[in-house]
């Protein structure tokens, strides 16, 4: 694995375009800036084409003989199926407003990371194949043949886009690079070009129900460990159920929160809250994943993985579904699930059993976000909180890309933070719809890609640094499991001293539970600072 340069080294970013035109500047697979190839065993499990052992740095990518034909046919087919693609191929005026909006461009200075040029990589081939000017004038009108170097460029740059949609906020025509990247990745997949960090989770999730490939007994064990920790900290033993028929609610968290810190703390907070509210819910081992790396593969694969949620809800006979804190999962649930696997006519419109609130905004999908659920509880004063337990934590809030720009979930998590902790917003240009990606979304959060992650995450980290220095922020709260995996190394690299957490971890710290013992530690087993103050006060009194 490549050695990661020091931050000062990485910041020597040259934004001057190269002397050679972009069509004459070949791609270079520099260690630390690309992801390893998908493994044949992953591809075999899900029946994907051209399984083989290869790496992007190989000269021979072992492509099928007629790979050009396969991709061009695939492109033609998708132009007929996606108006978005056809339109986005045609109407870009190359005004460049998107250029300095991409975190990868800001962090690398590579002009092909400007969203406009990323799209031109595909557009150039489109023009050559489908426009008269492209056929006649080629290079001058930005048209070129699909050659192997072009294909390598596609692989490098379409797996250097995190599908965060920030550029589409600023585009005067709403051209969405995420859409272009998604379709380009579908095309690449047709000839067996994909990355391990996507295909591994996809195949594991397909067969075993979660990205990490944890088997049913392992899932139960992981939850048991969380329950043990909760008992140690609060003295309350929670009772969980799995695959239970007749429960009112099916709860689907992202598996990242079940198996790895700091996500587990956030999951613990949610489990504690559900217990305290007496919620009649169950978990599923078959569908032990809210996330969906199919989104980073192809629309068909996304559908295959997403199908499990409704199938399991139907089998268990629940009334509605509650989803955990996860970013891209909510893009799938908000923008794709009902279309792909609905209608969910066997479910009921979600109604909070505690407050009676009817979630009309989810009347068709029948699935609500846990921060919507919790914000509603807080509004109705159903939760007893002691925010002083979060003393010492000064938080900021990172809008995860998909909940912000593919849903508009912005105030709900903030409302929860308002009740739990002291927190400060990052600068205006870096939050809400203008939020910056963690640098490791869309399957790019692997270790071999670390330099590119640090580059791509730089704009986000730099905004955290601003509030870290200004307000002493030491906790970066978010509602995304990928964030909770990718932001901690990003913070260690750019802003040491800032930890990462889910919103419900802070709620769990503050949550007053019936029958709990006096809390001495937070959900991370760190001593509570408000107690230290109490002790200090007592000492002073003596």
């Amino acid at each position, binding site marked *: 694995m490549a050695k990661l340069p020091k931050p000062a080294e990485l910041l020597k*970013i040259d*934004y*001057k*375009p190269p002397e050679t035109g*972009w069509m004459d500047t070949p791609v270079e697979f520099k260690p630390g800036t690309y992801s390893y190839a998908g493994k044949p065993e992953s591809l075999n499990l899900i029946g994907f084409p051209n399984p083989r052992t290869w790496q992007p740095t190989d000269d021979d990518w072992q492509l099928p003989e007629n790979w050009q034909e396969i991709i061009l046919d695939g492109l033609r087919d998708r132009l*007929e*199926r*996606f*108006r*978005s693609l*056809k339109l986005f191929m045609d*109407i*870009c005026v*190359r*005004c*460049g407003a998107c*250029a300095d909006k991409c975190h990868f461009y800001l962090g690398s200075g590579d*002009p092909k990371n400007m969203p406009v040029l990323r799209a031109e990589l595909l557009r150039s081939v489109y023009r050559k194949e489908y426009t008269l000017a492209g056929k006649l*004038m080629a290079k001058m*009108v930005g048209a070129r043949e699909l050659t192997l170097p072009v294909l390598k460029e596609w692989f490098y740059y379409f797996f250097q886009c995190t599908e965060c949609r920030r550029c589409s*906020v*600023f585009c*005067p*025509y*709403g*051209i*969405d690079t995420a859409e272009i990247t998604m379709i380009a990745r579908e095309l690449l997949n047709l000839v067996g070009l994909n990355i391990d960090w996507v295909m591994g989770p996809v195949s594991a999730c*397909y067969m075993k129900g979660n990205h990490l490939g944890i*088997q*049913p*007994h392992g899932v139960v064990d992981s939850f048991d460990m969380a329950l043990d920790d909760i008992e140690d900290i609060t003295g309350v033993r929670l009772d969980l159920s*799995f*695959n239970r028929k007749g429960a009112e609610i099916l709860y689907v968290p992202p598996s990242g929160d079940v198996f790895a810190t700091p996500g587990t703390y956030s999951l613990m907070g949610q489990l504690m809250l559900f217990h305290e509210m007496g919620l009649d819910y169950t978990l599923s*081992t*078959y569908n032990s994943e809210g996330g969906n790396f199919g989104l980073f593969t192809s629309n*068909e694969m996304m559908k*295959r993985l997403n*199908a*499990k949620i409704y*199938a*399991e809800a139907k089998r268990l006979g629940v009334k509605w579904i509650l989803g955990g804190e996860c970013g891209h999962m909510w893009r799938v649930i908000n*923008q*794709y699930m*009902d*279309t792909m696997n609905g209608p969910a006519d066997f479910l009921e419109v979600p109604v909070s059993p505690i407050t009676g*609130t009817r*979630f009309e*905004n989810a*009347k*068709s999908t029948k699935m609500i976000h846990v921060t919507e659920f919790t914000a509603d509880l807080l509004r109705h004063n159903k939760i007893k909180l002691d925010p002083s337990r979060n003393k010492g934590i000064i938080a900021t809030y990172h809008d995860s890309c998909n909940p912000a*720009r*593919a849903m*508009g*979930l912005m*105030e*709900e998590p903030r409302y929860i933070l308002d009740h739990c902790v002291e927190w400060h917003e990052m600068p205006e*240009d870096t939050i809400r*719809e203008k939020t910056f990606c963690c640098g490791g979304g869309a399957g790019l959060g692997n270790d071999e890609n670390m330099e590119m992650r640090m580059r791509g995450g*730089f*704009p986000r980290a730099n905004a955290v640094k601003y509030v870290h220095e200004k307000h002493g922020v030491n906790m970066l709260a978010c509602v995304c499991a990928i964030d909770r995996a990718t932001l901690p190394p990003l913070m260690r690299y750019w802003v040491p001293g800032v930890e990462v957490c889910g919103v419900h971890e802070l709620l769990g710290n503050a949550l007053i539970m019936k029958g709990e013992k006096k809390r001495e530690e937070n959900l991370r087993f760190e001593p509570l600072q408000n107690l230290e103050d109490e002790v200090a006060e007592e000492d002073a009194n003596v």
Partner: protein
Amino acid sequence: MNVAVALVIVLAILAIAYVGVELLGLAFVFSVVLPYVAVAVFVVGFIYRIVKWAKSPVPFRIPTTCGQQKSLDFIKQNKIENPSSRGWVIVRMALEVLCFRSLFRNSSAELTEKGDLAYQWEKWLWLFALVFHWSFFFVIIRHMRFFTDPVPGFVTLWEKIDGVFWVDLQQLYLTGVLLLVGITFLFIRRVVIPRVRYISLVNDFLPLLLIMGIAITGLMMRYLTHADISAIKELTMGLITFHPVVPEDLSMVFYAHLTLVCSLLIYFPMSKLMHAAGIFMSPTRNMANNNRMERHINPWNPEVEVHTYEQYEDEFRDKMRAVGLPLEKDI
């Protein structure tokens, strides 16, 4: 290089007009045939492109949300930036089309010497793009005078507003000047900003230069050469009533102007200029974010293979039993 090619194309168009009209005496071709052909190509091409886009379905509802969603009643929805109904989508689109809402968000990011990113006010592109497009629109409105008899009230009214300033004893139409100012800014920006120059193709410079040529020849006729307006109106009225006549007194500047306009009309449907129509069809802008409220139908929703619960239980039955998980078939 690309800018040079575009310039050569525009000059070639002008040269062809000159040779055709002055040397070969093809006034009829350039004043009658070409305009008819250009308008026909424009109309047919424009419709063809829209139909072509419309033929592809919109499989998924994928609006880019730029504000708070509709959720709980105590949380204020941003209805314009995150509309959940058709009415508010229309408002969002109107802002987009009429005010360039998204471009107005523009800022510029700069890496400071200290190694921090600073986001700066950058609305020039928005401002000049707006000035250019609206000026172009009003210039076209003013040109309605050439195709109507009597001239409708809204055209004369606008002429009064547009020409409120008088310079050297003649009315100066602001929009004509602003059109040239706007397009010149867009051109200079494309040449001067390195990364924008880097992505610019011939197809980006060509329309800019064509429109600059149109604006310059137009201004020349009005303020310098003082074209014979009655002769021009004789021609334009003949064209619009399908009784074309070619007046004697048409100047070469007019032919240059007309030929450039016709070139633009012909070029329009086969170029990026179709963004004018495309923006109305952009699924990230023209759809409501009501995915969880109303099901969107994908006409080609594919049948896919899924890994069923039954398959899962068959594979893990013993392990599931061992940890006390309920089973469908306890065999």
